[in-house]
């Protein structure tokens, strides 16, 4: 049966937004659209704040603390008071382009989330309206899916996942650094402040999201057809599956919290918020 002859026997494609659904079907894509848009706008703004090397609001060192915004970690580049490993900026960076240390960092988590299976399904609905929600008419007649360029590039997801796992280790180190405070004697003292908790929760949520990745689930054991032959892979698969079951929840919580972490450190660095210290040894 030829394509057209079978398609011609089917009901005509519904018009955009056409549905007999009686629930508030537009609410979910609207919330996703607003949530993702707010994060994209804020994170872009936060990245661009790093173009001014006279300020360093992505790092808070007041009261002996050492909090680095996750948008700027690791500190590959940076100026006083938080210099980067490779200096202020790369020598080859074109002078006419603004430079922020965040440019070298944020493309990795952004790429990881952009190609994430949860985010794909969510933004195809909320931004591309393809479909805007289940059983609701969509605006376009043609459809290529992820079979052809550009969306076939989503298959690069596992490579972003490898980089994202490295970031979890780096952010874990940042959370650890956030537990050490410089004292009046010049030494480092173990302590706990609100900022320390913010950084710890940040790495826990990002870890829960990253380690529940569908690609990781496949790579640690999902590729097997017989788990009994490899118990280690089966255990890893089951562990990732535990996190993967709530992947959407981890995705949202980690997205909100990583943004909040930057806000917290920025406001502390600007002197607007005071970082409350619980104790120091």
């Amino acid at each position, binding site marked *: 049966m030829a394509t057209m002859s079978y398609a011609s026997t089917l009901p005509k494609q519904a018009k955009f937004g056409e549905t007999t659904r*009686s629930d508030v079907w537009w609410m979910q894509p609207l919330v996703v659209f607003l949530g993702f848009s707010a994060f994209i706008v804020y994170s872009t703004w936060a990245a661009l704040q790093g173009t001014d090397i006279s300020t360093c609001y992505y790092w808070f060192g007041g009261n002996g603390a050492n909090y680095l915004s996750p948008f700027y970690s690791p500190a590959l580049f940076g100026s006083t008071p938080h210099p980067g490993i490779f200096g202020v900026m790369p020598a080859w960076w074109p002078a006419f382009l603004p430079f922020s240390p965040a440019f070298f960092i944020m493309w990795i988590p952004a790429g990881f989330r952009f190609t994430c299976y949860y985010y794909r*399904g969510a933004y195809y609905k909320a931004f591309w309206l393809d479909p805007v929600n289940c*059983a609701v008419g969509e605006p376009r007649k043609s*459809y290529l899916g992820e079979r052809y360029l550009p969306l076939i590039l989503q298959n690069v997801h596992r*490579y972003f996942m490898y980089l994202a796992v490295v970031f979890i280790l780096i952010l874990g180190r940042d959370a650890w650094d956030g537990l050490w405070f410089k004292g009046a004697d010049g030494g480092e003292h173990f302590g706990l402040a609100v900022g320390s908790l913010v950084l710890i929760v940040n790495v826990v949520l990002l870890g829960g999201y990253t380690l529940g990745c569908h690609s990781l689930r496949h790579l640690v054991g*999902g*590729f*097997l057809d017989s788990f009994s032959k490899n118990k280690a892979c*089966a255990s890893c698969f089951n562990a990732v599956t535990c996190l993967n079951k709530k992947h959407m929840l981890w995705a949202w919580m980690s997205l909100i919290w990583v943004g909040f972490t930057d806000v917290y450190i920025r406001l502390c660095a600007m002197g607007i918020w005071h970082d409350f210290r619980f104790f120091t040894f």
Partner: protein
Amino acid sequence: MSTVTFKIWRGDKESGKLVDYTTEASEGMVVLDVVHKIQATQANDMACRWNCKAGKCGSCSAEINGKPSLMCMTRLDMIPIDKPVTIQPMRAFPSIRDLVTDVSWNFRVKKKIKQFKPRPPDAPDGTWRMQQEDVDRVQEFRKCIECFLCQDVCHVLRDHHKHEEFIGPRYLVYTAALEMHPLDTEDRIPELKEAHGIGYCNITKCCTKVCPEHITITDNAIIPLKERVVDDFYDPLGWLWKILRPKG
């Protein structure tokens, strides 16, 4: 006892319209009960496919207030009945009459998928040995009752009519059950990528949401198959890893 109004699609493959029926409904009734009552008292010629009334035969699939659902598993207290309830046939398949659609395309698709091909028997008596943990994963897929609600809600079929290029979520689940089976030796990955069009799936998870058997279609069947396609066709490091990684 309360009065409910059902707007039921009446028509054939040429044309049709929603017709209003008002009847009395009592506590515990499901949508299929109301449809049967209307059929018995007001519209004797209304076509409606059903069989078990227990959510196990997959016959009474329809769209209730726009959501693909089994009529026999949708209780009236699950939907707002203070407003008219809309009952339509599935949109992804050709209409035969009223609420009945021609789902034979699905059976033609099933024939295209490479069949189960087990390894040689493990024992001299021609039997195999498997561990429970090896079949746990595919057991979920065998719950499918072939109601085709997942096919109906999938926008690739429903809106874009890619029936000749995409096998749909039901048959991706079927393929996953075969492909992940510990005894199976067949390779279906090249077909999945090309003829079966897994790349058309854009992970909206609508299929998972409507499945009456609560099969985690997207996360446990489609995405793992997509990852296997990536292994074979898009991951240069993976080709190396495939040589080195554990077998099984």
